[in-house]
């Protein structure tokens, strides 16, 4: 029997990554100095990292 996942569970990761992406896009635009730029890089790289980990797992 298949367990159906709730909307919250389905969207937990995608919503977090989308929020991080938007944060990253804005933090570099509004900040441009100090910690805001590196924060933007980390936030925008998060979707790439998560995808890479998922793909890596499927192989291992």
């Amino acid at each position, binding site marked *: 029997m*298949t*367990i*159906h*996942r709730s*909307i919250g569970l*389905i*969207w*937990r*990761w*995608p919503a977090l*990554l*989308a*929020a*991080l*992406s*938007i944060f990253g*896009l804005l933090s*570099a*635009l*509004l*900040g*441009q*100095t100090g910690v805001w*730029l590196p924060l*933007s*890089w980390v936030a*925008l*790289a998060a*979707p*790439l990292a*998560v*995808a890479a*980990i*998922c*793909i890596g*797992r*499927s*192989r291992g």
Partner: protein
Amino acid sequence: MSEQAAFDERAYERKPALRRWLFVHKWSSLVCSLFLLLICITGLPLVLRDEIDGLLDDALPYAQVAAGAPNVSLDRVVEASRKLYPGETVISVFVDDDEPKIMVYMASSWEAFKANRRSLHSIRFDAHTGDVLKQTKPFGEDGLTFLQLMLTLHRDLFAGLAGELFLGAMALLFIAAIVSGIAIYGQFMRKLDFGTVRASRSRRLKWLDLHNLLGVVTLGWALVVGATGVINELSTPLFALWQQTDVRAMLAPLQGKPVPQTSELFSPQAAYDAVRTAFPDMITTSVVYPGAPFGSPFHYVVWTKGKEPLTSRLFSPVLVDARSGVLASAITMPWYLRALELSRPLHFGDYGGMPLKIIWVLLDLVTIFVLGSGLYIWFARSRATKTQQRSAAVLPLPSPGAAE
């Protein structure tokens, strides 16, 4: 594809709302995907255009000067430009705040420029010495540079405004594909954990999972770049709208008065200085000559921008009487042009240093994969359906093992 997977997919397609979303997703993607692939591929070098430009630039180097050395007068570079191209019209003068350069843009006449915006050519001066560092020919006359080719394919497919609007519509379809993709994803993932890639069952299933995973993790970025792409493609009509409304209203009192001739023009340096003195908190970037399509026949339009990270993206024009050099008025930009200005960095990805550009390139590559895998899934599906129809004719009864 395994029978179970095929059955699952058909079962989940039975819901009418979902079928509609699938229809939207399929057709919006199919229509736009080839153009979007072209846009994504040509966008790759454009992200790095400053770096590529720097590598390919054959201009003379800037003179080494003491720190704080003053710029040469704009009057002098304009005069030098007119001597180089006698009889031509100066369109605008741009003073870079990043590198010590002053650009003078010229065309054979305002009529020629209005008929074809690409008839513009430029002369680059050293801002400190006033020496000519580089001259370009009008767009395409010397063959297109690599970046010009990429930009034209990316923006208008060599079709001018029609091409801009067409590619803008393709970007809208891309957004429709993302939104419908979100709706489908929620249903599709009810039986799967986030990030599942079923690599061992069939190639199509693996690509479907990769398409879903990579599409969903990049959707925030893709929506922003897609939406800002649409806004950028609307820049010509948006500026035209502004010219027809705000600018026209402001110039209405001057309607019918004689337009200043080149010989009557006041010093551009004086116009530049007048604005700099009146707006000390702004950076003055360029002086557009009277007669420009988005401007005034009676005034220099001096463009200024702010000094803060955000305000440095927002440009505000100031009108200076072209005959007297007297500051006439500062123009408030309407919201839609402000939105356009903010759309530029968010689309280009050029505002957060090299790491941001590299991330932009990687996200662009992921988008190319999502588009390509989408096409593959559709193609493999239609082949699978045909095969099924053929085998269904031989074996009319569904396999009992496929029931859920």
